């Protein structure tokens, strides 16, 4: 059976390694990128079914900029995305309304980043049944 593919973009190598291992144990094929530049290259060859994206990396809005690039590309705008951030709470904006975009990314979710993978797995399963 073909495995669902996940692209994990995060600048924390420890989070990246452990989360990759966890998702692979749940029968997903996982590829990682340490920033969105590499993420974009991987995206072209890997063709993920879902992307897990950190928001604050080298710049505070790196994740958002990446999201916007996807929105403007018709071949990628339908890929479900989980926006993951430690700053979810401190950003001080209503993240849900900031990223909800029914036309282009109907399957975008926002999550407060957690090392407990349960919540992440639940959202992944919800977006890729």
């Amino acid at each position, binding site marked *: 059976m073909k495995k669902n593919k996940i692209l994990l973009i995060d600048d*924390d190598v420890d*989070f990246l390694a452990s989360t990759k291992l966890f998702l692979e144990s749940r029968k997903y094929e996982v590829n990682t990128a340490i920033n969105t530049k590499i993420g974009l290259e991987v995206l072209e060859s890997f063709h993920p079914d879902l992307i897990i994206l950190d928001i604050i990396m080298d710049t505070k809005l790196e994740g958002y900029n990446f999201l916007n690039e996807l929105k403007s590309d018709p071949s990628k705008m339908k890929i479900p995305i989980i926006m993951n951030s430690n700053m979810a*709470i*401190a950003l001080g904006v209503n993240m849900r309304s900031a990223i909800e975009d029914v036309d282009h990314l109907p399957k975008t979710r926002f999550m407060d980043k957690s*090392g*407990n993978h349960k919540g992440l797995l639940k959202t992944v399963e919800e977006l890729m049944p």
Partner: protein
Amino acid sequence: MLQNEPVEDQNKLTNNLELQPTNLRQIRLAFWLIRLRWYYIIGIVVAYSIAKYILHITIWGLPINSVVLFLIIYNSLSFFYLRHLKRSHIRRSLKVVNRMINFQISTDLIALTVLLHFSGGVENPGIIFYIFHMIIGSYILSTKESILQTTFALLLVGSMTFLEYTGIIPHYPLEGFIITNMYSNLTYIICTGVIFVITSYFIVYIIRTVIRESTKHEIAYLNVNHKLRQKDKIKNEYVVRITHDIKGHITAIQSCINVLHEKITGPLNQQQEEFVNRAHVRIEILNQFISDLLNITKIKLQQKYDKKYFDLNHSIEEVLKIAEENARNKDIIIVQKIDPSISKIFGEQSSIEEVIINLILNAIKYSPPGKNVTLSAEDKQDKVLIEVTDKGIGIPENEIDLIFNEFYRASNVKTQIKDGTGLGLTISKEIVESHGGKIWVKSNIGIGTTFSFLLKKER
């Protein structure tokens, strides 16, 4: 993202602090002046009636009644005009209010002079009423304006006395009350005049000095208060930054421990498993604590909420989905009593959902397995009452008032349930209050607890 705002220039700060209360103060004092004038009018009518009908003093009624009638009309018009000014933009109307106060005090002085002229002039002990006007003027107006008003009053009383003395205008004595030829006694007039002038300017000087001192204290107090708020803001921003950095590391540690905990890298021996479990539990608690700390700090820093009309029923459905797993794990059913007439309310949806989820998760956490939790929403005309009731351990009576305090955890839960942060209820309270609502709790030890909060439906 969270940048320090440039530190304000000290002078600008002081000016701002001075300007803001002055606008409101002048409006308030203008209304006070109008209220005083009503008492003054009543006072004239009472004094006139006593003088005429009880003491049988000869007094010409027509001019007195005319002045009273004029004051009634003039005070009513002033009231409506001021109310109109208050509703318009306060900052723009400050000059107009000040001009109006000056005009009113001058008019009051003229009215008093007319009254005195027709009731004995300088012989009338009512001459002391000028002093009241000077006190009021010094309290409301600037030093320069107070001195001008006082000079105007002295000119009025001086002119009246001079004109009566020289016979240019007639003298209306208060026969049957006091000695009636004093207005023509030059020594009396000069002595009274000198004392009157000195007293008047001295009163203005004393009152202006007192006011200047108290304004200095007020500005110093406002400055300190402003600085404290700035410092609190900087502290909160600092907390946000630090906790965010800590959270990044904790998330990575938790993620690594989870791999071991889930035995993804292979089986663990009994001791390894025990310690990984311990680390797993503690890191979960720490992570929750950091999240709550970030949340409460963000709420304190947040000036504005993204408020819109949203469907409360829909929010409740969403919240129940989140709480479902926790309830199922403890064999608890969440009983819903939702008033079907409730639909849209005004507020920040995610924050209100956070309050409801906080209360429901708390109720589940502190309930014994199998005991149901009730969530009710009741329509209260322009408000909505939301309640979460559990049959849990309850809160000790003497701790009810402390339960919403930051980091407070009731004494009977600290030992039993270790994963509370003591911030959930503080967060809920901050959110409800910043939506103009209120939150409270009723509890009986061993019977259960009800958390209630009221929210406005409209903007």
